[in-house]
């Protein structure tokens, strides 16, 4: 499942804490913690969304500054600066919304393939099932394993 995503999930958690749980809490300290929880989650919600881009921009700006200073810097820090500038990580993944759109297109195509190839033992269907296993295994970490203990 692509949706609901992190933003929607956190919005629901914040809403439950503020609208349903906090008003029913009588202990003053516990009520105070409810307010902290909601605000922390607001920060997490924005951070999840904004941090990768902010850090990428920040790193690019700082890398440019450090690289530009070069020989103007005192000799004993030049090596550390040059090494830090050189170790730029490879850009690896597109942004999450682009990945999600891509996944929806690809999965819709796979549904069409399954519907169009009715023989279960056809190599296409066999390979599709192997892929589906791996897809579920990849999602399992946050969709199943992260949940522990009573939910209700």
């Amino acid at each position, binding site marked *: *499942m692509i949706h609901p995503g992190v933003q929607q999930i956190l919005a629901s958690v914040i*809403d439950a804490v503020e609208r349903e749980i906090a008003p029913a809490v009588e202990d003053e300290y516990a009520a105070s913690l409810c307010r902290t929880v909601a605000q922390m989650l607001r920060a997490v919600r924005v951070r999840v969304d904004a941090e990768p881009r902010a850090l990428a921009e920040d790193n690019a700006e700082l890398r440019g500054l450090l690289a530009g200073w070069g020989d103007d810097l005192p000799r004993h820090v030049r090596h550390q600066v040059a090494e830090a500038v050189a170790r730029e990580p490879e850009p690896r993944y597109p942004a999450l919304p682009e990945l999600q759109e891509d996944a929806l297109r690809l999965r819709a195509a796979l549904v069409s393939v399954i519907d169009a190839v009715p023989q279960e033992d056809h190599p296409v269907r066999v390979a599709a099932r192997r892929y589906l296993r791996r*897809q579920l295994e990849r999602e399992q970490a946050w969709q199943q394993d992260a*949940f522990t203990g009573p939910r209700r």
Partner: protein
Amino acid sequence: MSGRLDDAGFVGRWFRHRAARLGPGVVDVRVHAVRRLSRGVSRQTWSVSTEVREETGRWSGREFIVRRDHADGGIVPTPLRTEYETYRRLNGSPVPTATALWFEDDPRWEPDGRPAYVRTKVEGDWRLPFIADESPEQDRARIAASKEHLDKLALVHTLDWEGLGFGELFPVPSSPADCAENLIRAALARLADFQFEPNPVLAETISWLRARAPRDCPRITLCKGNNGHGEEVWSGGRIVAMSDWELAALGDPAYDFAQVQEMIPEIHRDGRRIWGLPEALAYYRERTGIEVTVERVEFYRMFYGVLQFLYSHHAAALARRRDPVALRFMWTATEVSFRSQLRLARVFGVDLMKEAIA
């Protein structure tokens, strides 16, 4: 005129306006308390404590139940009206249920501005503390309760569903052989109303289920859907009300056996099984003359993953429309939805399910 369901004053005015619907001879009502019951997550259930006055002038205590969707909607994509109409059609039949009193869709009286229906409250308890007790002393009680449950399922399955109008509520199979395929068609048609994301796991499973859909069902019956421990009201060792008809359908009675919760315990003594699914099916066949095979029950157990996907995807669809959505909807849309896919994947041989939800 509309007011809040947690406002006993408003509920008092509402019930007085509908006093004639509260029961034969009721002319007035006083509402003492309204409280939300925590049990059940798919819809809201509220209890209303009252005193009613009959034409004789005598006041007596009586409780009612109000059912409605959550503000965000219902998790199970069965309309509230269908649930009400199911009760209404069952009233007066041999199947014990609460009495459906009225469906409130007059905007002046809908609590919190959304539809609700009112039914009687049947006294009893949904808990059977001994049903999971595996000590030999409980064997007799467990088997007796299991038989009582089977007797009540037999009543459901032998109803004249056509005469009672259930063909107007649920998709009707074209023949007994069509029962499984009809259920698959109905689930996919319902899903098409709100599906927002392609799901290859579901597509692969549907292909497998269609290839294995049983065609040896002997007759079309009304089926209750989820049933068993936690779904019915018990009193004095008897089921006095069968509740929760959200997954009711017309189809193969094996559909119900696949959804029995705890009420067909496997009991082994001295190396011999003295009670379990085969014995329960034999007992049921004696009562009804209907042959239900273990193979068909297994098929509908596999099919249950489709129902779970249906309602968890419905919760996810509601979550897309409302921001924020109630947290229980969000949980259903995430963990429960993923688990439905794990259940579906079992059908085609991929078993990644770990522990049951606590």
